[in-house]
């Protein structure tokens, strides 16, 4: 009789173990005294010390964070615009084309995106002299290209669930389009904007394939550096860095989750109040 919960519970445990045991083992091995990733040589925090002396790794990590910050922000702005357009403008010329084109990069292999961006930047460079050299800007642009799709999809689905009549009411009461956007639409989709931004940030932070095509001198991002270190074996200071990143991300996700649940609760309460006052 009590079979089902046991079964479900073991499924859940298995799933969690599947996801988190590898990360956990990496965290454990970041405290390994030995240089080999697979032999336990006693507890030590020496790799954390080594990490903070390794300028190459720190610079790459800092660069990745800057790229992620810029590309997530721009992608969120563009994605929000596109998402609102696709959800609110019911019919316009080229709507199917636009929605198809927005989602195409989702299924496009990264290698193809990478090569086409590389060729595009080179052509652009020889035609108009910009970008003269690939680097921070081209990497950020490439990441925007990838992540804008995800943001658009999130914003669009959020808006299609919400009620258009609220915006129409505001417009009837004399709000200008900018006021409607600021006071009604954006607050409605703010949780979606936040989760879109977080997703774009994460995508940018671990993107390797496209990035490797569009980087230039002095812009080796963290994932590329780690990937290129594989040739001589990854050193445990990378484990230490990854552990720190996991810790930061965990805190970030917890904060994001807290904000989302709070605003969701407030929204529900507001809606309930609105219904009550209507009645």
């Amino acid at each position, binding site marked *: 009789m009590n079979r089902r919960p046991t079964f479900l519970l073991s499924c859940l445990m298995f799933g969690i173990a599947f996801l988190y045991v590898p990360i956990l083992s990496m965290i454990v091995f970041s405290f390994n005294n030995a240089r080999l990733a697979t032999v336990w040589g006693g507890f030590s925090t020496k790799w954390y010390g080594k990490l903070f002396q390794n300028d190459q790794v720190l610079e790459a990590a800092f660069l990745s964070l800057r790229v992620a910050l810029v590309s997530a922000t721009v992608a969120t702005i563009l994605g929000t615009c596109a998402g609102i357009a696709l959800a609110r403008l019911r019919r316009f010329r080229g709507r199917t084309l636009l929605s198809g084109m927005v989602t195409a990069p989702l299924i496009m292999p990264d290698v193809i995106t990478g090569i086409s961006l590389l060729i595009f930047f080179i052509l652009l460079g020889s035609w108009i002299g910009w970008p003269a050299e690939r680097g921070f800007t081209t990497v950020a642009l490439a990441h925007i290209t990838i992540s804008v799709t995800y943001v658009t999809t999130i914003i669009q689905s959020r808006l299609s669930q919400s009620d258009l009549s609220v915006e129409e009411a505001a417009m009837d009461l004399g709000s200008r389009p900018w006021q409607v956007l600021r006071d009604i639409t954006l607050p409605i989709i703010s949780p979606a904007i936040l989760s879109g931004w977080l997703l774009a940030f994460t995508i940018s932070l671990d993107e390797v394939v496209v990035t490797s095509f569009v980087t230039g001198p002095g812009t080796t991002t963290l994932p590329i550096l780690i990937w*290129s270190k594989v040739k001589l074996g990854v050193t445990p200071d990378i484990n230490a860095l990854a552990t720190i990143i996991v810790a930061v991300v965990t805190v970030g996700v917890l904060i994001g989750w807290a904000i989302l649940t709070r605003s969701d609760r407030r929204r529900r309460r507001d809606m309930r109040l609105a219904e009550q006052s209507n009645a």
Partner: protein
Amino acid sequence: MKFNRRQTFAALGATLAMPYVRPSWAQAGSVNIYNWADYIGETTLEDFETKTGIKPVYDTYASAEEMQAKMLAGQTGYDVVGHSGLNMPQMIAAGVYQPIDHGRIANWKDMDPDVLAMEAVWDKDNAHGVPYMWGSVGVTYNLDMVKERLPDADLNSLDVIFKPENAAKLADCGISLLDSPTDVIPMALRYLGMDGDTTNVDDYKKVVELLKPIRKSIRTFDNTNYLNAIPNGELCAVNTWSGDYLVARSRAKDAGVDINLAYFVPKTGAPAWVDVLALPSDAKNVENGYAFLNFLMQPEVIAACSDFTGYANASLAATALVKESIRTDPAVYPDATVKSRLWAPKPYNEDQDRAMTRAWTEIKTGG
């Protein structure tokens, strides 16, 4: 929290511009280097900056293919690129690299004539590449594990791996081949007594036949993971590049693993490899590129690079300055006998490339 349009855009603009605010070193002079990760001396870049005031920017690639794709596309912004000698002919034909003025590298006279001769097979008169590190293809054995199973094996011979009865005995302690047809196939051709540079693509079939009966004894085809697998005792007969054996040994030592390793270049012959440094045709800081090459080729500087990478450099004057454990290791600095076994494979044409890839797929899948 009410923003009007102008405030919103101003705040956004400021946020987005922030990452661009950083010290610019372009006017102070820089040199952009593109090479394997950790493939340079530990302090070489800092020393170069202190000595010349030129800021070195060192970027890394994960695979030769990735680097070549980018170089062929052009306009990479790099001034000095580390490149495998074997792949230089295509790059030179495509005009990727500019000729190097040997007169501008003060220590060019120290270059090992043997290494220069090998590099010249891929790059006529060493016109486009400065030999950096070089080495051989061979087999690293875990002596204790191999001796236990094959007490009287001649480790200088590839019989140990290529004879099915030997391979079967070593199967349980682990045989690994390089996942690199351009290294394994020429070596196997020479083992069969054929020309390692054969242009008759039918000869590759004989290599497929040779490897077929031992395929089930080969645990893996791999170029990097053995650096950890050897110290762990997971593999005992490992086809590797010369320097990897030293890396594996030092890893074992770091981890406190007691292991008895030895590296052999097969007596039937093995390909040599030479990594070169080249200046792209569209390099912007050619002067600084030369300054870097000139600095790097000083005996004490290049010796420090060998100390860190564990590979032999091409400068004869530097040999005496290299760490003794590396300098005296015949796997890294081969003696005359071993050197005579090495040859620089001739560049492949497209037919060979295709046939080799096909043969390699057959070998790996057990055809």
